[in-house]
């Protein structure tokens, strides 16, 4: 029963009960609002997102997009910002791993699986990011090659869903299996995560068409997927914050009880 002991009833000997450890988690948690503002700014700064570039653009049109002297700095600066801050999702996902570890599970399978997903989304995003930056680095390159880099960037950006889907489903099942009177996350968080996973799935089929809902600028592959990611970040940020603060309050209360005794 080592795992139950570790996951649920971490005794007073555990470093997790030290308030300082939770304070450190608060620093990581509060990077999220800043990251969201930065992500949103970079998103709206990139001229290819609002509206999304069409996959039906010819090679010459794509080359012209990167050769536009007014747009080029915006392309570069937005993608440099994304390169800096794209991985800010990792600490937040790791905080979710820490909360999964507190759940009433018998094994650490869910926290392991979640840990395995953590870097997947940001890593694929960085591949897309580098392709956009490469296309912008030498806009005078032959239009064929610029189009190739642009296709690679857009397909990777759209299809980066595998580990985002998995982490939502893993978190949902972890919540369903969290059998305790006061579960770490409410049941609706699990339902919500399954919904997000379903919303992300169509983007996996972006290669099927250059137009319509599945194309990279389409309703499902661009709007539904990206809105789902945005809503997930905000909602999970709030419920994660509540869970971390609740844990902190419990530790302080327990500490006060021990002092009183």
């Amino acid at each position, binding site marked *: 029963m*080592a795992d139950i002991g570790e996951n649920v009833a971490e005794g007073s000997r555990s470093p997790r009960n030290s308030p300082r450890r939770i304070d450190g988690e608060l620093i990581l948690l509060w990077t999220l609002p800043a990251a969201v503002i930065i992500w949103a700014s970079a998103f709206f700064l990139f001229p290819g997102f609002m509206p999304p570039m069409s996959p039906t653009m010819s090679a010459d049109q794509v080359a012209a997009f990167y050769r536009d002297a007014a747009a080029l700095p915006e392309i570069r600066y937005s993608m440099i910002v994304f390169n800096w801050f794209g991985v800010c999702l990792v600490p937040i996902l790791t905080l979710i791993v820490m909360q999964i570890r507190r759940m009433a599970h018998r094994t650490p399978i869910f926290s*392991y699986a979640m840990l*395995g997903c953590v870097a997947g989304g940001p890593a694929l995003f960085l591949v897309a990011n580098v392709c956009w930056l490469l296309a912008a680095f030498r806009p005078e390159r032959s239009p*064929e090659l610029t189009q190739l880099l642009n296709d690679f960037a857009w397909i990777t950006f759209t299809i980066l869903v595998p580990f985002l889907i998995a982490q939502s489903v893993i978190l949902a099942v972890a919540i369903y299996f969290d059998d305790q009177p006061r579960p770490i996350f409410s049941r609706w968080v699990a339902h919500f995560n399954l919904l997000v996973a379903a919303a992300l799935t169509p983007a996996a089929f972006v*290669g099927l068409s250059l137009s319509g809902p599945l194309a990279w600028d389409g309703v499902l592959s661009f709007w539904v997927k990206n809105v789902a990611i945005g809503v997930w970040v905000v909602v999970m940020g709030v419920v994660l914050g509540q869970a971390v603060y609740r844990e902190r309050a419990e530790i302080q209360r327990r500490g006060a009880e021990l002092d009183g005794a």
Partner: protein
Amino acid sequence: MSTVVTPPESGSNAEATPPSGPTHRRIAWHLRHGPKRELWLAWSTLVVFYNLFFPMVFVVAQVQPPPAPAWDLATQVHYFHERHLGIPIGLGFIFAITGMTAVNNALIAYSMRRMSISRAFGYSYLLIYSLSALPGLLLLCIALIVATLRPERDPKVLGWLYDFAFLSFDGTMGVFLIGSLIWMVAILIDKNRVFPKWFGYLNLCNALTEVVVAPCWIFGRGVLAWNGQIAWWLDMVVFGVYQVTFIVMLFQMIRREDFGTGPMPDLPRKRATAS
């Protein structure tokens, strides 16, 4: 996550006796009360993943077995033309389900956690195999999808995507090499009898396939090329045996699991006391 395969005798909780009756009722009981439900769910995910992975790659997308590296550009272009639907559909499914590998890797990492060895083994395996999905699977799928997206692209560009995809698939070696060796060493030094020692050596066989495949980066034709009898076919046979074996090994591990920290008991029915 996945459908749940009927778990066999799962656990040994005194109050936890699975009901007799229809299969779906037993599955529902195991999902709600089964003491090993987390492990069985992870194992079922593993089985479901491989049952989807192979049909999608081999039958729907038809990108494996791989085409010849020696084909001329016109044949390569034709290859992508033929698969303009199969690749985005089959590999689209791959993108939808690849996240399941995180659960598979978590189960294997758990097997090492159950051993009498450092946690470093399980964590290393988990991180290496999580990393492996990128160069070993996802990037090459993206290259194939990008190629089929515009078959009218310059054939030289398509040829570059062709090489990128198939070399990346065969030629991503270190993650699987070192990953298998970590599992091998863990099994060999483990004193908790989680797996039989011969299975440790089977890991070595899998690791060696990653050595044998290295010449695919050098040879454009022949048995050592990326579609060759040695670099692809022999390796695929070894991997097939290895994969079926580790699925069975993990199945047996879960059946024997007593959630203790000492040596694993032999078979569930031989256990006298509840965990």
